[in-house]
């Protein structure tokens, strides 16, 4: 991993963590929906990264958010779990057996598979996140509502991000 890409990743981490801490964590739309947009970083990890690398980045991303949100372990646990599944999830939505470096995106995977991939990522992460946050588990209905609403919010934000940023990098003719 080159220094440049490392610094870029670090900046992404700081940016996404800051967004989450100062902005998204304060949102509770309809009382339930809190977007956890920072998983965008995990969703975009490319296939050249080692699995340990993915795990470590995700863990520290979650840890930084936790430290500044007063929820030690909550985001790091769910983010690390998501990072464990990430490579497998990418393979699930890529039909061809590709050997080149794949950065998950609608251009590399196709719009629908990428949307499905994002939705599944968000669902896995948010389910774990809200279960851990709601311990001791009491009201399952509220838990399910929180997961569903937040998944929708996060998904919308990630889709917006996909169309705003990622396409600028790979200009398609």
């Amino acid at each position, binding site marked *: 991993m080159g220094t440049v890409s490392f610094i870029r990743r670090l900046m992404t981490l700081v940016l996404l963590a800051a967004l989450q801490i100062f902005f998204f964590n304060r949102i509770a739309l309809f009382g339930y929906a809190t977007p956890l947009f920072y998983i965008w970083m995990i969703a975009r990890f490319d296939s050249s990264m*080692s*699995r*340990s690398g*993915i*795990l*470590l980045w995700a*863990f520290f991303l*979650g*840890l930084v958010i*936790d430290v500044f949100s007063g*929820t*030690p*372990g*909550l985001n*790091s*646990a769910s983010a*690390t*779990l998501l*990072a*464990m599944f990430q490579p497998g999830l990418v393979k699930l939505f890529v039909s061809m057996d590709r050997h080149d470096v794949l950065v998950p995106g609608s251009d590399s995977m196709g719009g629908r598979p990428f949307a499905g991939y994002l939705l599944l990522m968000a669902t896995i992460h948010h389910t774990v996140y809200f279960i*851990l946050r709601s*311990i*001791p588990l009491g009201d399952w209905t509220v838990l399910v509502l929180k997961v569903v609403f937040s998944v929708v919010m996060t998904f919308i934000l990630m889709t917006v991000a996909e169309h705003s940023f990622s396409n600028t990098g790979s200009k398609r003719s």
Partner: protein
Amino acid sequence: MRSLLDFIVRHSYVFLFVLLETLSLILLFGFNDRQKEAYLTSANSLSGTLYEWRTGVEQYFGLRKENATLVRENARLRSLLYDLSDSLDSATERSMSSDGVVVARVIDNSVRKDDNYITIDKGRNHGIAQGMGVYSSDGVVGIVMAAGRKYSVILPVLNGSTSISCKVKGSDSFGFLEWNGGDPYMAQIKDMPYHSSVDIGDTIVTTGFTSVFPENIPVGTVAKVEHMKNGYTLRVNVNLAVDMSDLRWVYIHSRTRDAEIDELFKQVKD
């Protein structure tokens, strides 16, 4: 060995994952109050369940010893119980006894025969004599038929030979209570005057005409009133006040027959 090492290296991320997750969960349950509390509670309930199982198993193996202890304890309690019940008996006797009334314990009884008898643990030595009235706390039981030195035999209501003078409570209609077998809870008054005012539910008590019973000892309640065809008398079925099958203690009305009455009867007969 080589391949094992290879495997470990290739899957080192799994160990990393476990490590990071463990770290996260330690943080989560160590520093968040709600989760910590939940963890402690569930840990407690888990260990509690385990303790319970262990105790259950241990208790099972200790059963034989426990049993022996219980049997000894049982024996000790039983002997205490007998002692107590003896002293209770004598205390009851003392407290219930009063002038003209002897308290006796029923030691033999029957209700299912055609002619039933009751045996009590008091006799002549205690002032019991033939012809005395016997009643319990509920009502009339019978009449002393024979008195031995220490025991007496009672002719209860449930005997064909018994006839007890009784009346409707609060009125002067009277007759003689008899029993003709069968239902041990039911007896009949046969010769109640035809125009007596008797209604179902009325209480029947002793008359006190004879000195066998004092007045107003309950006999039972009216269950049925039949007008006899002869046009002179009523037949009244009486639900007996006393459950004869469940007699423990009885009182014997031992007021001796007034000698003057006897004397007068004698004169009249002569």
